[in-house]
């Protein structure tokens, strides 16, 4: 009574697509970041699923997951700091308005 690996892969694919959709369609920069976080998590879920099914004895995948989570944390911190900085300038977090290269 085990769940096939394919289920997890499909789930993570679906989550990835949802995150992508959010990142692509929403105007709010914070929601774009949220979409990116969702994609990150979908990827890590994939990693852990593969670990559980194919490489249970070694912990390399868990290491990767730990590092990926840390990087995601750093990334979100920087991303949000940027959003705040941009907000200070444009008084908006609308990604459609952040389109000029000159500040």
């Amino acid at each position, binding site marked *: 009574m085990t769940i096939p690996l394919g289920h997890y892969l499909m789930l993570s694919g679906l989550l990835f697509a949802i995150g992508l959709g959010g*990142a*692509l*369609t929403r105007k709010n920069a914070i929601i*774009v970041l949220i979409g990116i976080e969702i994609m990150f998590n979908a990827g890590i879920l994939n990693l852990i699923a593969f670990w559980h099914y194919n490489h249970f004895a070694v912990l390399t995948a868990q290491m990767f997951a730990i590092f990926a989570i840390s990087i995601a944390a750093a990334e979100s911190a920087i991303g949000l700091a940027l959003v705040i900085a941009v907000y200070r300038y444009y008084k908006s977090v609308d*990604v*459609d308005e952040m*389109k*000029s290269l000159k500040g």
Partner: protein
Amino acid sequence: MDELVRQQWLIPFFPLVAAAIQSLLKRSQRKLSASLTIGAMSLSCIVALRSFFGTLGGEHHWPFFRNFTWFQFGTTHTQLQLGFILDPLTAAMAAMVTFVGLMIFINATGYMAEDENFTRFFCFMSLFAAAMLGLVVANNLLFFFICWELVGLCSYLLIGFWYFKPSAAAAMKKAFITTRIGDIGFFLGILMLYWQTGTLNLYDHGHGALEQANRLGALTGWWGLSMAGTIAFLLFVGAMGKSAQFPLHVWLPDAMEGPTPVSALIHAATMVAAGVFMVGRMFPLFVACEHDWVMDFVMWIGCFTALFAATIAVAQWDIKRVLAYSTCSQLGFMMMALGAGGLAPGQFHLLTHAFFKALLFLGSGCVIIGTHHEQDMRKMGGLRKYMPITFACYLAGTLALAGVPPFAGFFSKDAVLLATYHRCRLAWGMATFAAFLTAFYMTRQIALVFFGKWRGGEASQRHGQEHHGHGQHGGEPHEVPWNMWLPIAVLSVFALALGWWEHGHHHYLTPDDEMHEEGKVLVMGLSIAVGALGILLGWLIYGRKTMEHADSADPLQATANWLFTPLNRKWYIDEIYEATIIRLTMWLGTAFRFIDKAVVDGILHGVVWLARAISQFFRWVGDELIINGGFDTACESVRESGGLMSKLQSGRVQNYFRVLGLGAAILLVIYFLRLGR
């Protein structure tokens, strides 16, 4: 010997650490910064000299090298290795770079004494030296390329050190972009080499890229060349950019916008030497394709550059610009020697040239400081009396460059000419003429700068006090402090003596190469003769009767204006580039904009029109009320998509992201389809 190889990494390491520490220093910590740079360079110099003297004695089976794995990736353990090498080429080059670099650094403490960004300058200089030394000791093309690009970056930073001057900012960009053009070739060459040999190590116990050169020579490549020839050609393109060979030489004279020690470092020891050194390093590849036209190409490019730049140098006013074109010309000599199959003469000339050209540049730096930041030779003159030490050293450098017998330049230039003589008489003739011009323009420079009477005063009187004299000194030229003249004095000793060394170590650089002795007397005699002739002619025109005023015409200009003006304008090369390449680029830009407007928009409008037409058709056929609305919206969205397409480059991050996503989707489909097969 093994131990010497093992310590090779120290050579670039010290300046690198110095640069890293200096990047953290405050502006005010000038002494610390300078002593760090000089100390690190001294340590490197000791290590380099140790390996140099270690390689001198005894017969060894060169090269010695040591590779190690940097990292590996993938399941097949694709390894990326780095390595260090020790052979005579590297040892001599490292010793030269560290020693000359050290001299330049010491001189720079004087030259830059009043600059407020002193620490930044020395940080860049250290990094520059580290990159160059890394390139010298690299046994791996990747490492080589990294250092190569770092050298380019540092030269960019240093040429534009005074970035607030528009000319410096322009020059830095020009240098960077021009060398980058060459680097494309270099990079392609590296890629092809990796493709063909599967390794980037130069030597690796029979598996290295250079050790497979003969195999590559047998393969067929592109453009009617063997594979080795193709790669060698691409690599040479890189060397052309870096070593300022025609037609990529344009950046070098402009690079004079940097501080003079930078010019010395770039033109003597490091950047331009990198290209020649690279050709020398990859020489097995060039030898493997000896029957292709690549070697001839190298030789002719070198020969042409030598002559071409020498002619321009005849008619320049700026003291550094003359030296810059002279460097260009000398690099041409080196390339020519390499192209003629003479690795040893080419590299030997590189070494001697490094010493006396560094000497000349530092000497010109002393002159510039001594005359309160004056660079125009017309406003100098008579400095012999004011700056005797500088004059003596400068004279030594000039004689070395002109190829007067006991000086270093004579021996190396003679070797170059001899090598060319055996390959091609025409090239030899052109090169000899270039040697004549060299003697001529150097004599002109000496005469203008050091003889006659001081013309700077009247100019500064005329222009008011726009040249800020530094400190309490007035308009009179003065001798420079000891930390500036000491290095050039040391270097002038080498300019005098280095040639003799070659006699004892004839086979140092290429142990198995037999020097051709025939024709030596002819070549040597002619070389001495043209040198003497050049000096004589130069003295006759410029020395006998010196210029009276700063704005009076050049004697050569007075007699032969039709010749002088094109030379002074550098054969209009920049103008030609302006008219051709830059114009072409702009034309292309216009054309693409037209294509964008007419074709892309046309297609999109066509699509809209088609959709409209279809909707018209359906309006006849189907239910007007329902379908109508639907198709109107469809048309609207198609129109919108047209608008989207024409606004592709909108600066909207999500649009880019979308394209990225679509691209990923397409790649995924391709990947899985291939996987399925």
